């Protein structure tokens, strides 16, 4: 959610070092894994296990330490891997479900006990709306609105110009609001109860 001082310190340390050690990656894991896991859960939706994805992201990080060391922001680099990995796994999962090889996963995975009921409900609704968005819009909403990455970081993550990030975000917000409105209408119709989705 936030680039903490610790991460900044690690960023500088990684930048200064020509060689990224396993211990450097471990420190990033300790610092960033809860945040990345949450981001992966939001990017991936209910079809994939965020713990498996997080595992894979850091396996890639360990195998490609040179690329990680060359990145301006290790956080953005890890998110970049996360986005690519999630997109690839979503495609595979969709194909497997189409072929009847996979059952849909339960959506209740690894909530923090510190979440309030309001946050749980909001997260659940947001996830349902995100699942209805195209991948490009979903990615930018998750990265900017939920994970708190800057425009410059998202630019690095997605490999697009910063200006495109803002444009995409503008359209993604509109799409999100429209999808939320549709979801609310559907909920009202099916439940027969007036009021919004909570």
């Amino acid at each position: 959610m936030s680039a903490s001082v610790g991460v900044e310190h690690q960023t500088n340390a990684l930048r200064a070092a020509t060689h990224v050690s396993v211990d450097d990656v471990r420190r990033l894991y300790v610092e960033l894994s809860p945040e990345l896991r949450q981001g992966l859960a939001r990017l991936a939706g209910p079809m994939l296990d965020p713990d498996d994805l997080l595992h894979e992201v850091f396996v890639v990080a360990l195998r490609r330490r040179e690329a990680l060391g060359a990145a301006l922001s290790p956080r953005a680099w890890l998110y970049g891997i996360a986005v690519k990995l999630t997109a690839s796994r979503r495609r595979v999962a969709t194909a497997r479900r189409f072929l009847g090889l996979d059952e849909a996963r339960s959506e209740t995975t690894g909530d923090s006990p510190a979440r309030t009921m309001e946050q749980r409900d909001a997260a659940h609704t947001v996830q349902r709306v995100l699942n209805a968005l195209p991948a490009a819009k979903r990615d930018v909403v998750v990265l900017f609105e939920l994970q708190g990455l800057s425009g410059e970081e998202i630019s690095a993550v997605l490999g697009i110009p910063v200006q495109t990030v803002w444009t995409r975000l503008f359209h993604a917000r509109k799409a999100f609001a429209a999808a939320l409105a549709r979801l609310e209408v559907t909920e009202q119709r099916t439940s027969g109860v007036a009021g919004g989705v909570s």
Partner: protein
Amino acid sequence: MKPWREEEPDERAAKLLHIAAEAPAAPPAQQWDDVVAASITPPRSNMGWAVAALLAVVLGVSVTPWSRAPEVAEVPPSPSSAVAVVVPEAGSVWRRLGDQSLLLERGRLDVDLAGNTPTHVIAGAVEIEVTTARFAAQVVNGHTTVDVVEGNVMLRFDGQRQALRAGEHFEWPRAVPSSAAVPPPPDPCDAHHGDELLACLRREAQGAGLAAETALFELAAIELRGGHPSEAVAAWSNLVRRFPDGVLHLEARLALLRTLVSTGRSAQAAEVARDFERCCSADVRATDVRRLRRQLQTPQ
């Protein structure tokens, strides 16, 4: 760019995203050791599915008796080396690192080894050096266990060495003894009742360490039960002041907060709540405390 634009004022969506974004992240279920173990395994190609499907078809067509037998891998003997029979448990992740080494990343291996040259089995964070022995190694969630059935093995872990003989069991990291198995120290105030108990607890509370902290907490609880909330507040405040990071500080802060609220001391309660938010923001009750403080500070 952060605020939603005026001409697109979907406050519902913005508010929903804001609330969802504030939700704290849960820690990952897997361990760093698992990541390291996976990173040294060569990546599998995308052809895995096709190969697996082909194998499934072949196996389905030609059912042979050995298809039901446990997987037994014989390490090919090199001129000087041992004859090893390795039986992995289903689902285990392991591989050979040359003639003289095995790497167990996850699961269980039963190894029967008879030879002249030491063979190494790396099981999680433990390296097992063995010449002739029969043993089982298991790695589950970064936790390694070794059970020797016959012969001797030499273990290396965390810069240490330990020999393990037949019938012995080894665990790494070592199991932490359960606190339930350790009898609690006798409480000197246990024998007292009524005013004697209070006097004893007051004496204990003047001491230091855990004994004083627990005495203060119990003193406060007794005073509260006895209908003396001011004395209870004084004892809990004393505990928090003297042991701000003590084992009972969270409970003391919350009990103090509850007592202050129930006695209508809202300003003091708000102050205690603010202290709780400062010191203990990671606690699961911090959100409730924050809400309570806001209510206390809202003009009626």
